[in-house]
């Protein structure tokens, strides 16, 4: 345990070191800040003086130590655009992203477990064949595309004019197949203030309505991955001796499926969840772009457009920290679920 935590800590330090070096390298936009500050007409004496006063004439490693020292104190400088500390800006935008992720994680979990189990229990039914086929298509659909299809269907709506409009039944079929739309698909609406400090979309119907389409489209990309994994693992587990024994003992099928088999199925699911955290952040960026959801991802992309270096650096450091922490938590959780695993990395 101690060994594991030490190794994790070492890895975390290595990751944060690499990110901070990248952050240090790009913090001035890879240009010469002195020239940018003084313009081309400055004399040599002037630029030397400024260089000295900014501390840029010192060796590179000392400058890096300065940067790292500030970073440890969570000081990444002021955002060029917002004129306030970069971390404050991120703290303001991050909750929206977290709510989006939480909502879609809930949808994914609530749908993928029953679907995956059903498809494993009844592999020959037409429904599970259809669902597995859908999941295969699902992994080939990029998140922004499913988001756009959702917008077209439920926000803009579709008017079907396929059937002749002159006849009654044609009218009726057209109307039946048309979708009204009208769902909000832009921004966050008006989040409700809870307990004075927390703006949330969870506390009102209107907020949930705004949350629905972004969360659904984010869930649709994660769903196929999880359904396929749970299905495959469940099939394997159902063949194992202990499940056969449980059946022979005459346990209720529901107990076998949802207690005995599911527990072992969840192991790889947890691992996948951990591995997918990074991908999830990337997908969040895309989803927030489509829906103009005012979260950290959209803020990051705007920061790139504005070349707002302190904000970019701060975002990278925060995301890196989130990765490191969640990966460690997933490993610990894995150990909790499967006592046979030693944390040095191999099953006993």
């Amino acid at each position, binding site marked *: 345990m101690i060994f594991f935590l030490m190794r994790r800590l070492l890895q975390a330090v290595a*990751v944060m070191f*690499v990110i901070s070096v990248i952050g240090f390298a790009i913090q001035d936009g890879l240009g010469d800040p002195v020239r940018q500050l003084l313009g081309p007409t400055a004399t040599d004496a002037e630029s030397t003086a400024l260089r000295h006063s900014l501390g840029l004439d010192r060796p590179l490693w000392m400058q890096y130590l300065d940067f790292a020292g500030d970073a440890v104190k969570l000081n990444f400088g002021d955002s060029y655009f917002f004129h306030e500390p970069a971390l404050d800006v991120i703290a303001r935008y991050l909750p929206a992203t977290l709510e989006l992720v939480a909502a879609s994680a809930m949808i994914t979990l609530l749908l993928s477990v029953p679907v995956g189990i059903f498809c494993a229990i009844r592999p020959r039914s037409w429904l599970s064949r259809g669902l597995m086929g859908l999941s295969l298509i699902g992994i080939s659909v*990029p998140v922004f595309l499913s988001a*756009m299809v959702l917008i077209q269907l439920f926000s803009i709506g579709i008017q079907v004019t396929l059937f002749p409009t002159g006849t009654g039944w044609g009218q009726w079929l057209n109307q039946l197949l048309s979708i009204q739309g009208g769902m909000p698909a832009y921004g966050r609406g008006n989040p409700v203030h809870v307990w004075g400090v927390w703006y949330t979309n969870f506390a009102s119907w209107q907020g949930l309505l705004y949350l629905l389409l972004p969360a659904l489209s984010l869930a649709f990309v994660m769903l196929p991955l999880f359904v396929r994994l749970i299905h495959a693992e469940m099939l394997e587990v159902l063949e194992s001796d202990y499940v056969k024994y449980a059946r022979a003992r005459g346990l209720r099928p529901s107990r076998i499926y949802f207690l005995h088999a599911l527990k072992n199925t969840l192991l790889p699911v947890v691992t996948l969840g951990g591995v997918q955290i990074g991908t999830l952040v990337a*997908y969040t960026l895309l989803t927030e772009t489509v829906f103009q959801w005012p979260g950290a991802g959209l803020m990051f992309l705007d920061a*790139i457009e504005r070349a707002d270096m302190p904000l970019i650096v701060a975002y*990278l450091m925060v995301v890196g920290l989130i990765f490191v922490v969640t990966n460690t938590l997933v490993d610990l959780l894995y150990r909790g679920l499967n006592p046979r695993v030693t944390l040095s990395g191999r099953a006993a």
Partner: protein
Amino acid sequence: MSFENGSPSTAWRRFRDSYFLYRLQRDRRAQICLLLFGLLMIGLLLTPWIAPSNPYDLAQINLLDSELPPFWIAGSEPGHPLGTDAQGRDLLSTMLYGARVSLAIGFGAVLVQSLLGTVLGLLAGYRGGVVDALLMRLADIQLSFSTLMMAIVVGAVVKAAFGGAFYGDYGVAILITIIGLSEWPQYARTVRASVLAEKRKEYVEAARVLGFSSYRIMWRHILPNTLSPILVLSTVQIANAIMAEAALSFLGLGMPETKPSLGSLIKSGFDYLQSGSWWITLLPGLFLVLLVLVVNLLGDWLRDTMNPRLYKG
């Protein structure tokens, strides 16, 4: 298997007797996928001759033709079977040319990452020790970051540092480099796993006893035996690279609109979704899904057929 060396039909005969062909003849889905893939490839190779117009040629574009609908909707024109985009470019031609760009980036990125990953994986697996530990920790770290996120970050940094114009000029090369560099761990881990399995076999020992250099053993003896996992991984990775490129382009970190890939076509069409011109964005999207789905299905089938020891995780 027959070993009639020297006869000109040996390769063909080996193919005819192979398990690969046997499986292919018995799998309808794989046949359809292969056929579709072949058709797509031929279509994209012949695009300059079969496309109704050339979207890069400004003389062929008429701004008055913008946002024409596809043929099954009233108001379409026969010259533009799938309609036109907001700049009046023929959508079918633009999609075909865009798919060429997407596919070129996909293949290029897979080439880069497979070369890099194979070399590093071979080294790590064969040499072991410090080299192995260092390279695999690096791969761990990079994978824990997710390759897509890595690509986005590198793309963002390059764009912020050099500006959008530079990005537009060297888009293809930049994207190939970014996606190639961020995905090498997949190959390194797979190759390393099979090298570790191969290393213990007698033929490697025999080669070592014969005094071959480790360089020769790695490249001429071990590498050919790790090719089937590399091949299987490559199909999946081509699909992934195409998706990654589309995602980057959609975020504005990819190909510019003047030389669009499927991703940047989807992005440029997105602004017109609200005004009712859904085909500008959804048709290229469907094309992208079709392309990726066919490649994914082929990869699935290859994995079932060749059944290599893929690195699980």
